């Protein structure tokens, strides 16, 4: 009898964002009749609203498909992966649960930044890579050139490569057959004690924490007494199952299988992503390699718009953290915003996603402060401290010098945008490293850029100036000494801590002026005149004024409708309560967001 694992394939699909990962996943599910075409919503594996709306994948979603091939029944476990630069970490998690990866390359755009990053990630994880070329239906498709790119740049053999259109369902069968023929089966040992990797977890209000697992050795079923190797806690398994893509309970998950496991785990922190599950008695001693710890690149303060909802925000962050191991947060107190959290994110998109999830899934009104990176501050007394919140910067007199994180940015673009991109990078204090012409249509430009510049509007500006053609990836290379200053914003002569920024000296004037102008537009007129000043230390570098309000009377009291007038007044009062008080100035939440975005 053949090994049952020979009929299992665990694979993921990796690609640059927008190259058709989720669409291919949908087609494969339709082709294997896991879902009928009639039932299929666009992009089935993207379960969050945000994922579907933005057309991106954030969370990992596995699905188990049955498929008959050459007289045998195969179980194909597909794990969808995120494509955005911010979520490289999540990709590496899903890769650890697979033996192979389909690498999609867009037939017209070719190899992009994330194509390479993900391909290298897969190689690092010892995965077999199956390249496919997608979007061959496009008039601009140039599969022969793309084949050469794949061979030259990534070094993969393209003989017999599947040329597909996920959108139109062309050659999907060929891809499925190649998955079975070319990707290796798992080779765990079912007779050994249980060893399973938690590659993701989700919270369910009925079942508690649900762990998404890959069983490496042994098996797991209802009643199995398990132990989490990191926390040492033990549980009785209450349910195991697979995704089809809905959760389907089954009797047992065995070596090589991918599925889920519930064990009435109440505390979200007890199902650590990357942890190894083994038997409570007679389990293994050597855990699976976890994931390399991620360090946040971007920080910002998140506060409840209404201070009374601090507890709700705390609960929400705790729940999000369960689903998103890369989210970091700690308590923070701001004079202007009260109690909140300083959160660390993988990047700007990650930050936006977290904000949106807090607002949509948890129905919270939040205020976010400007993103910051972590700076190294060398003090005159010789000590070095790390500062991620501008408010915590020591007084200028105590600072010997400061260092900021630098990234190596790789930009891929058609050659006509080289000038534009170089202008942008120069403008962002970038230092040119190299330019490589990949072929007649693609150029790779490398720059060293301070992360501080990247986290503002770099990505948006890049996309708009290159009409969306350029792609971009970056990695932190280290810290560099830099002329940084703290830019404060004063409202009616009081510093508003939540608006403070750390910026390069050369940029301080322009930024101070823009922020002051924006604040003038968003702060409503009040009963007195409000000066808005931007300053570095005691030096004022920009000033605007919100004039005193002159009119707020309401319409006449029609027919003695005093109640209406009273309600309007109460509403007005309520509206003011929702604003933040900086000294005696009422500041609406959106004022704190104005420093996040800079239009040119």
């Amino acid at each position, binding site marked *: 009898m053949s090994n049952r694992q020979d009929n299992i394939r665990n694979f993921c699909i990796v690609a640059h964002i927008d190259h058709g990962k989720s669409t291919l996943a949908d087609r494969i599910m339709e082709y294997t009749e896991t879902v009928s075409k009639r039932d299929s919503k666009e992009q089935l594996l993207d379960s969050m609203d945000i994922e579907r709306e933005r057309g991106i994948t954030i969370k990992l979603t596995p699905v188990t498909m049955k498929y008959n091939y050459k007289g045998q029944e195969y179980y194909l476990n597909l794990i969808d992966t995120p494509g955005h630069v911010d979520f490289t970490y999540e990709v590496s998690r899903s890769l650890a649960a697979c033996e192979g990866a389909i690498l999609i390359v867009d037939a017209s755009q070719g190899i992009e930044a994330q194509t390479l990053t993900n391909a290298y990630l897969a190689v690092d994880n010892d995965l077999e890579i199956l390249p496919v070329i997608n979007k061959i239906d496009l008039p601009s498709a140039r599969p022969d050139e793309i084949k050469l790119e794949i061979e030259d740049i990534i070094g993969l053999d393209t003989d017999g490569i599947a040329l597909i259109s996920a959108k139109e369902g062309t050659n999907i069968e060929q891809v499925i057959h190649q998955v079975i023929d070319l990707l290796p089966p798992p080779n765990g040992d079912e007779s050994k004690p249980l060893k399973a990797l938690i590659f993701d977890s989700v919270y369910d209000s009925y079942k508690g924490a649900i762990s998404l697992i890959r069983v490496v050795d042994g098996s797991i079923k209802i009643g199995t007494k398990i132990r989490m190797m990191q926390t040492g806690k033990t549980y009785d398994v209450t349910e195991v199952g697979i995704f089809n893509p809905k959760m389907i309970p089954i009797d047992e998950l065995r070596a090589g299988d991918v599925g889920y496991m519930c064990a009435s785990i109440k505390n979200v922190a007890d199902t650590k992503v990357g942890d190894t599950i083994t038997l409570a008695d007679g389990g293994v001693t050597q855990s699976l390699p976890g994931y390399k710890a991620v360090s946040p690149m971007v920080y910002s303060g998140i506060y409840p718009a209404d201070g009374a909802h601090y507890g709700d925000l705390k609960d929400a962050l705790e729940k999000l953290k369960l689903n998103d191991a890369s989210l970091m947060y700690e308590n923070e107190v701001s004079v202007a915003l009260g109690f909140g959290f300083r959160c660390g994110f993988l990047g700007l998109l990650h930050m936006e996603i977290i904000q949106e999830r807090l607002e949509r899934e948890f129905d919270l009104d939040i205020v976010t402060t400007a993103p910051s990176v972590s700076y190294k501050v060398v003090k005159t007394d010789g000590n070095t401290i790390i500062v991620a919140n501008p408010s915590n910067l020591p007084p200028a007199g105590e600072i010997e010098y400061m260092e900021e994180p630098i990234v190596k940015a790789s930009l891929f673009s058609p050659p006509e945008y080289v000038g534009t991109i170089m202008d942008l990078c120069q403008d962002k204090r970038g230092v040119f490293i190299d330019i490589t012409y990949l072929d007649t249509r693609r150029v790779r430009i490398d720059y060293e850029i301070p992360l501080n510049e990247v986290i503002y509007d770099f990505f948006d500006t890049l996309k708009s100036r290159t009409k969306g053609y350029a792609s971009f990836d970056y990695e932190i290379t280290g810290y560099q000494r830099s002329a940084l200053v703290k830019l404060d914003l004063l409202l009616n002569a009081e510093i508003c801590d939540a608006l403070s920024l750390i910026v390069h000296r050369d940029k301080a004037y322009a930024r101070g002026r823009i922020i002051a102008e924006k604040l003038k537009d968003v702060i409503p*007129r*009040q*009963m007195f005149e409000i000066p808005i000043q931007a300053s570095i230390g005691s030096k004022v570098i920009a000033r605007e004024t919100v*004039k005193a*309000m*002159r*009119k*707020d*009377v*309401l*319409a*006449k*009291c*029609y*027919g*003695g*409708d*005093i*109640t209406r*007038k*009273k309600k309007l*007044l*109460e509403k*007005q*009062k309520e509206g*003011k309560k929702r604003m933040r008080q900086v000294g005696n100035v009422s500041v609406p939440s959106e004022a704190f967001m104005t420093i996040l975005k800079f239009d040119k």
Partner: protein
Amino acid sequence: MKNLGIYIHIPFCESKCHYCDFTSGVGSKDRIAKYSDAIINEIKGFDKCDYVVDTIFIGGGTPTSLNVGVLSDIITAIKSTFEISLKEFTIEGNPNSYTEEKLAEYKALGVTRVSVGVQSFEDKVLKSIGRIHTGEDAKSCVKMLAASGLCVSADLMVGLPDQTIDMAVRDAAWLVDSGITHVSCYSLILESGTKLHAMVKNGQVALPTEDQAVDMYDGVMQVLESGGLNRYEVSNFGAPCEHNLGYWRLKDYAGFGVSAHSLIDGVRYYNTDNIAEYIKGSDYIIDEKLTIDELAAEYVMLALRLDCGINTSEYKDQFGQQAFDNMQIIASEQSQYLDISTHFIKIKREFSYISNSIIEKFI
């Protein structure tokens, strides 16, 4: 026996103005007849009759667009239900709906005061807010009313699309010269859901800025006061309207008709704002039973709109020393905006147009 003000709401107009978000519409003859029957039923069903009615105000809508016969039936119902000792009886209307014949009939019904919605004498401005009369129509109407021997009030608006300060001041000066005794001047409030709101959103019309609107109001106020029409409330000038003063001094009043409000023995009631439901005979709705604290807050809210302000001894008598002390504390925190003396607390004139922000602190 307590005094009672009566408000009758007539929700019918010849056409709806662009800025209006009030229950009103064009009524068919049949609908108007059914509506007046419903009002008469409501009046007759009023069960607290230990009141003497001292003011009546028929507002809308455009009450003057109705047949006098309909109004007469309503007045008859009031007289048969209540004891009457009228100080003031006002009817409201628009320039095109007043006629010499109607005026004579109103006098016969006991009307003592007529109010006319002029808004502006500028044709372009009138057109942009959907008024169906011209500036000339309004002028001849005011002249006719002024000659009638009745007390006359005219409504003006500031902050209208296409309006300038010169226009607003000119309008006020003309009214002063006409010899009428009362002017109300309202700043346009852009209510969502109105046609004007949509027009502004689409960029079809542009409104003056907040500063311009206030300058218009200041200009109008100056002209009216130098013409002898002194301000007694944020929006009202001249010989005070007794009925409205009743609202502002928390006097009991009964409102009849669709969406009309009442205050009877410290309880606020209101009627449905759906005309069809009202005609079917829906019951009034109890809005709130005001506690003494709420009454005190309302007293402040309403009194601070008046130029005479809060009467401190009256406040102490009605709401007690404790409430008075609390109110005094808030007043002293806001003292930069207030005139505070032993007898009254009032908003300084220069801050009257931001009275809401000041009043808000008291509620």
